[in-house]
C-alpha cells in the first residue's frame, strides 16, 4: 500500500509538471501574439511593455521563459497583475482558496451523506413507492441549472422572506472560520445546500444503479446462502463494493469544483473564491491571475485524483497490485 501511494504521488508530480508546461505554452507562447501585450493587459504603455519583457525574459528562448515564469510563480511568489497594478497573484489565490475549499468541502459532505442515504434507501425499497420518488427528486435536482437554483435560493433567503422566516440568514459574503466559526457556517449554509443539491441527486441515482447491479452478483447470492440478513448484505457487501465507483465519480467532481468549477455558485452567492477570482480575471483579461488560477485548479484536480486513486486502492484490494 505504501509503495502504491509513493508511486501515485510521483506520477502526480509528473502530471503537474506536464500541465504547467502546457498552460505556459498556451498562455505565453502561442505564435503570432506578443506575449508582453498579453501579460500587461489591454491598456499597457510602452514602458510597461518593456518592463514586462525584461521581467519575463521574453527575448530569450522558450525553456528559459518557462523557468522564469515558474520562478515568479513558485519561488519568488512575485507574479504581479498588470491590470490591477501591484496586485500580486499568489496572495490573491491564497486568499480565495479557503473560500472555495470551505464551500466545496461542506457541500461535498452534505451531498455524499444525502446521496448515499438516498441511493441505499431507494435500492432497499425497490418496487415500493419511495424508490421512484427518490429517483425523481434526484433527476429533478440534477437538471436544475446552478445559477438558476442559486438565484432562487438568494431570492427567497435574501429578499422575499428575509424579513420573516429567513431573518437569521446573513447577507452574502464569507467569514473566515478562524474569526468566527459560527458565522462561517451560517454564511455558507445556503451556498452549501445549493451546491449539494446539484450533486446529491446524481449520486443517489448512480449509487442505486450500482447497488441494484451488485445485489444480482454471485457474491450476494453467496452472502444469502451464508445466512446473513438482507440488511447486512446490502450494507456490508453490496454497498461496500458499490462505493468504489462512487469514489471515482466523487474524485472527478470534487477536483473540478475545488479547481474552479464552483464558479457559478460562487458568483451567484457572492463568495470571493477561486471561481470568482477566475471570473473577474477573465473579464479583465488579467493573464497572470488567470494563469495562477488555472495552475491552482490543475494542482487540486491532480491532487484530488491522486487521493481518489489511493482511496480506490484502499477500498478495492485488487487495485493495489496493479
Amino acid at each position, binding site marked *: 500500500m505504501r509503495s502504491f501511494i509513493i508511486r501515485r504521488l510521483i506520477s502526480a508530480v509528473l502530471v503537474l509538471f506536464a500541465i504547467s508546461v502546457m498552460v505556459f505554452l498556451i498562455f505565453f507562447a502561442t505564435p503570432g501574439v506578443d506575449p508582453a501585450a498579453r501579460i500587461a493587459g489591454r491598456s499597457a504603455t510602452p514602458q510597461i511593455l518593456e518592463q514586462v519583457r525584461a521581467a519575463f525574459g521574453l527575448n530569450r528562448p522558450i525553456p528559459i521563459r518557462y523557468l522564469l515564469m515558474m520562478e515568479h510563480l513558485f519561488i519568488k511568489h512575485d507574479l504581479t497583475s498588470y491590470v490591477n497594478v501591484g496586485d500580486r497573484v499568489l496572495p490573491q489565490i491564497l486568499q480565495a482558496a479557503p473560500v472555495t475549499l470551505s464551500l466545496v468541502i461542506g457541500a461535498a459532505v452534505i451531498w455524499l451523506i444525502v446521496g448515499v442515504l438516498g441511493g441505499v434507501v431507494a435500492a432497499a425499497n425497490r*418496487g415500493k413507492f419511495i424508490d421512484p420518488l427518490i429517483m425523481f427528486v434526484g433527476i429533478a435536482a440534477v437538471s436544475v441549472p446552478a445559477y438558476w437554483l442559486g438565484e432562487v435560493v438568494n431570492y427567497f433567503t435574501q429578499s422575499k422572506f428575509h424579513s420573516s422566516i429567513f431573518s437569521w440568514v446573513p447577507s452574502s459574503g464569507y467569514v473566515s472560520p478562524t474569526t468566527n466559526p459560527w458565522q462561517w457556517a451560517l454564511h455558507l449554509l445556503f451556498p452549501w445546500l445549493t451546491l449539494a443539491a446539484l450533486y446529491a441527486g446524481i449520486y443517489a441515482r448512480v449509487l442505486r444503479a450500482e447497488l441494484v447491479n451488485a*445485489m444480482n*452478483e*454471485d*457474491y450476494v*447470492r*453467496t*452472502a*444469502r*446462502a*451464508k*445466512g*446473513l*440478513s*438482507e440488511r447486512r448484505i446490502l450494507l*456490508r*457487501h453490496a454497498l*461496500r*463494493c458499490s462505493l*468504489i465507483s462512487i469514489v471515482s465519480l466523487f474524485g472527478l467532481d470534487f477536483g473540478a469544483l475545488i479547481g474552479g468549477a464552483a464558479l457559478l455558485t460562487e458568483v451567484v452567492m457572492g463568495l470571493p473564491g477561486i471561481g470568482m477570482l477566475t471570473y473577474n480575471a477573465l473579464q479583465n483579461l488579467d493573464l497572470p491571475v488567470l494563469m495562477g488560477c488555472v495552475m491552482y485548479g490543475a494542482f487540486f484536480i491532480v491532487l484530488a485524483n491522486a487521493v481518489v486513486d489511493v482511496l480506490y486502492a484502499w*477500498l*478495492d*484490494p*485488487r487495485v493495489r497490485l496493479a
Partner: protein
Amino acid sequence: MLSVRDLRVSFATRQGALRAVDGLSFDVGSKEVLGIVGESGSGKSVAMYSMLGLVRDSNVTISGSVKFEGREILGLSDREMQSVRGGDIGMIFQDPMTALTPVYTVGWQIVEQIRAHTDMTKQQARERAIGLLGEVGIPDPKSRVDHYPHEFSGGMRQRVVIAMALSCNPKLLIADEPTTALDVTTQAQILDLMLKMQESYGSSIVIITHDMGVIAEMAHRVVVMYAGRPAEIGPEVDVVRYPRHPYTWGLLGAVPRVDSKNRRLVTIPGTSVSPLDVPEGCAFGPRCEHRMEICDERPVLHGPGDHLDACWLSDAQRLAIRSARSVAGGAS
C-alpha cells in the same frame, strides 16, 4: 432428512408462464450423496435455489413441499430461513471466481458466516477459519487467511468456498456444479475433497452436474431432470448401468470414456425444449427416437422398486432397444 414433494417453480414472463421446475420430488437420506443431472436449462439450479429462498424474482411462484428434518422450510420467512441457510444447509456454487466478495479477505468472510450462526468470539472464529482452510487443503492457512479472493487460483477459491460452506457443520451441502468452472485436474481434486469432507463431517450432499462422470464418482442416488421434470430417479448403480429413460440413454452416450481428456458433454440430437413451451405430453417426446402415439400423454414416474422413470416404453421394448444398441456399440 430432506424430503421434496411436487416442487413447482414458475416465472411469469412476457411470453407467458415459464415452468422452470415442474413437479419434482426426491428424498435425501442422512449421509447420502444425491446427484442431479440434466442439460443446461433443465431447472436444476432453480430447484435448489427456490428450496432455500434464494430465487429473488418478484415474478416467481413456488409451490410444493420441502421438509428438512421433518420441518417444512418452503415459505418460511426470510428471518427464519437465515438460520437454515449457512447453518443447517451449506451451499457451494459453480463459479468460484465470482462467488466471494472481492473486497474482503477470505478469513473475514468465513468468520462472518461463523459469527452469524454461533456466538464464537472473533478470535475463536478466526482460529476455526484457519483450521478449516487447512482441512480443505490450502497450504499455509495461517497467512492465507488474510489474503483476498483474487490472490487465490480458481481451484483454491473453490476450496475456500467449501471451507466456508462447512464452517457451521451443515447437515446438508448443496453443490451447484462445483467443478464446471475448473480444469480437469482441479475438478478431480475438488471432488475428492468433497468426498473426504463429507466423510469427516457426515453431511449429506446434493450435487448438481452436467457430467455423468461426476455422478458415477460421487452419487449414491441420481435424479435425471429434463425440462424441469424428473425423467428418471434411482440408485446410482442402477441408473448408470441400467438406465431406463431414453433421455438418460442419451446422456450416458454423451459421457466420453474416462480416459479422454475432455469431459465435455457430447450433445444429444435435437435441442433442449424451451421451458416456455414444454409439450403437454412427455417433455422429451419431440427429441425421442422411440416416440409413440401415447407419448402425447404425460407419463408419470413409475418403475420397479426405487428405480423410477417417466417413460411409456414397456420393459420388453426397452430390453429390445438396449440389446440392439449394445450390438451396434460392440460392432463399432
